[in-house]
């Protein structure tokens, strides 16, 4: 017979299930705890880099770069050059991505073991400022001359006339194209398309000639929206993109936004390979595999992208970010900045931090970082150095990237976007773009985008300093 043990087992089991449920709940949201199993969001306190001693007279400072991997070697090189000139040890603990770096730094700061120097994506500017975990660079280095940094780099660091961070790595969107495909399609491999209209024409030719399935591909990432708005001199939100105060409204349903989305979704619908949302890898693979003949990606990947594409036998060319017209307002700079956490430190340590920051954002190491990665240097002097070395002559593809940088114009639209909700706003942009690719009307989607983003702004409250 089916016995009473079943009932006991059953009740025991149900009890366990409830416990699992409860544990799941609290684990997910408990104070500063990591996201639960499987998520990669909760890698706080990676590495035990919290030494702070001055044991043998050496000062130790901690630095958490946003990523290692391909970039780790360069970070090591930069740090060892710095260390060889000073009696300072830098303990580095690379994180996995901008999101993880933010998450890890905030969690560690909350638990009281933050690194001395954090490396945060530029989109996190306001949220980092508002946490109260950081000390403005302007207070740490009051005599720092910010005019030594180039405009597109320093832009993101100053909010409401206060210098919060220092630009470390800076990027822009570039067009990578397959010269073999261009030749096969009868296009001039030395003149990539510069405007939306040209991208469409080139893509049409490529598809018509049967060279590739699609003309072009790039990931659905909000940076494109940000860049194409700034190129059209369109602000993304009021209060001069938030640099002058807390914004209350976004301009995601503006004519400029409509122009770019209408081209992307409607004009390019059959010529563009859609790789899905937020998927850099899928877009890169599509270009590598010859599905599309052109691909847009960050200049920060210049070094490894070029070698990856060449390994695949692609004769790769680099062009500027194509824009709605030849009138360029300037791109929206990507990349990340270095921040100093707010802690009680010895004078020796504080001095070590100042030295480290100056060196890392200084001419020599910024030039090195540019060469090894493609992230353009923050320091004006680096550019002179590179020119004197003849680096651009030897590396014409880096030169293209640089020409685009030179066309940058100082204006509120190009100096950064200062919304505390920016990481979430970019999610909204990405998801609504996704909806457009599923068939949602561009105008409706843009209006939804704007109203959702505006609702978010309303829920945010900027901290006043």
């Amino acid at each position, binding site marked *: 017979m089916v016995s009473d043990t079943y009932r006991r087992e059953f009740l025991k089991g149900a009890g366990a299930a409830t416990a699992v449920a409860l544990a799941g709940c609290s684990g997910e949201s408990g*104070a500063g705890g990591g996201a639960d199993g499987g998520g990669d969001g909760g890698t706080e306190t990676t590495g035990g880099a919290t030494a702070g001693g001055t044991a043998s007279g050496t000062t130790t400072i901690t630095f958490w770069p946003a990523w290692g991997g391909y970039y780790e070697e360069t970070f090591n090189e930069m740090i060892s050059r710095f260390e060889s000139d000073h009696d300072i040890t830098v303990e580095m603990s690379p994180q996995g991505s901008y999101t993880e770096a933010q998450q890890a730094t905030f969690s560690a700061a909350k638990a009281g073991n933050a690194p001395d120097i954090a490396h945060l994506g530029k989109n996190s500017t306001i949220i980092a400022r508002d946490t109260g975990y950081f000390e403005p660079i302007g207070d740490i280095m009051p005599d720092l001359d910010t005019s030594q940094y180039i405009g597109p780099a320093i832009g993101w660091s100053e909010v409401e006339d206060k210098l919060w961070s220092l630009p470390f790595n800076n990027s822009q969107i570039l067009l990578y194209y397959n010269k073999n495909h261009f030749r096969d399609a009868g296009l001039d491999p030395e003149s990539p398309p510069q405007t939306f209209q040209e991208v469409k024409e080139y893509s049409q030719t490529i598809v018509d000639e049967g060279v590739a399935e699609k003309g072009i591909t790039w990931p659905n990432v909000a940076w494109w929206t940000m860049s194409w708005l700034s190129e059209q001199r369109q602000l993304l939100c009021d209060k001069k993109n938030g640099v002058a105060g807390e914004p209350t409204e976004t301009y995601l349903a503006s004519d400029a936004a409509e122009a770019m989305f209408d081209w992307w979704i409607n004009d390019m619908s059959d010529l563009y390979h859609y790789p899905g949302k937020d998927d850099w890898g899928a877009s890169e693979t599509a270009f590598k595999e010859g599905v599309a003949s052109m691909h847009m990606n960050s200049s920060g990947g210049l070094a490894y992208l070029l070698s990856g594409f060449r390994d695949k036998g692609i004769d790769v060319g680099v062009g500027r970010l194509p824009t709605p017209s030849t009138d360029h307002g300037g791109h929206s700079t990507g990349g990340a900045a270095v921040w100093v956490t707010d802690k009680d430190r010895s004078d020796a340590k504080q001095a070590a931090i100042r030295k480290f920051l100056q060196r890392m954002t200084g001419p020599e190491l910024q030039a090195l970082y540019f060469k090894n990665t493609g992230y353009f240097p923050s320091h004006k002097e680096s550019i002179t150095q590179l020119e004197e070395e003849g680096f651009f002559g030897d590396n014409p593809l880096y030169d293209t990237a640089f020409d685009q940088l030179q066309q940058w114009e100082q204006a509120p639209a190009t100096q950064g976007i200062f919304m505390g909700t920016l990481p979430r706003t970019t999610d909204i942009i990405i998801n609504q773009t996704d909806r457009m690719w599923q068939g949602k009307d561009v105008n409706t989607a843009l209006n939804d985008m704007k109203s959702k983003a505006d609702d978010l702004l309303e829920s945010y409250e900027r901290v006043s300093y």
Partner: protein
Amino acid sequence: MDVYQNRLQGAVLLLPTVVVCLAFFYWPAWETIRLSRVRTIGGIQKIPVGWEHFTTLATSGAFQYSVAMSFVFAFIVVAGSMLIALYLSYLINEVSAGQSIYLVAAIFTYALSFAVTANIMDVLFNPTVGLFAEVLTIATGAVGVDFAFDYTTNPLWAWIFATGSTMWKMVGYNVIFMVAALSGIPESINETARLDGVGSLQMIVRVYVPMISPTLAFLAIVNTVNAFFLPFPVVQEISGGPSNTLNIMIYDIWQSYNNSVIGLASAKSLVLFAIIGLLTAFQLLLSDRFAHYGGT
């Protein structure tokens, strides 16, 4: 009669459990409730907002979607995995040779973690690099259908991918319990039914299901609770699917947490907590009425 020699011994033996419960359950739970009533920026700045987060959530269309989709997701994976498991268990119970091989083949997914499951599935079916995705495209191409299992751009495929992966993972657990329960059914009942000429389907529906109903009721509860939490890695693997179509509560909470909106994330997790609590109570009540435990 007394299990312990004296009260002190009992207290000392219980202490570790009490400490663990306090540290890892009651304290975080209390913290969650506290955090749900503040607005947080990063973590240091806390502005008390009372019940504002809950009223925001009550009127938020996005959150309502998220709650509704959590139920839809849970229903699909619980019903799906239990039906598949029931049929597999029946077959395993029937087969005479190589039973243990079939059993292992059916339950090995239980040994995988959900994170690994998510990874394996994405590697196999990824529209860009997936092996099975390619095979599917070739196979459908051979019969003249232009098909791509592209769950990165098509919401329907994203749902099929996520629920399918979750079911694949959950079936193993269900089979373990069901096979055990089926093997507990006396042979005489099998024999009687067979002599009466009862077919396979009839056998499952009319004989086996009622006989193992306590097990099924238990599984229904455990599966439902799990279905609200465990699919997280699968959904996260595909970033919530195209246009966040798979924005189930657990993923939504994680995203809020990731965006450092801790207060709102805490409020959301309390809502999830309440839903799971009510659901479990409801199912216990219901199963008490319908599950057959034998005896009187």
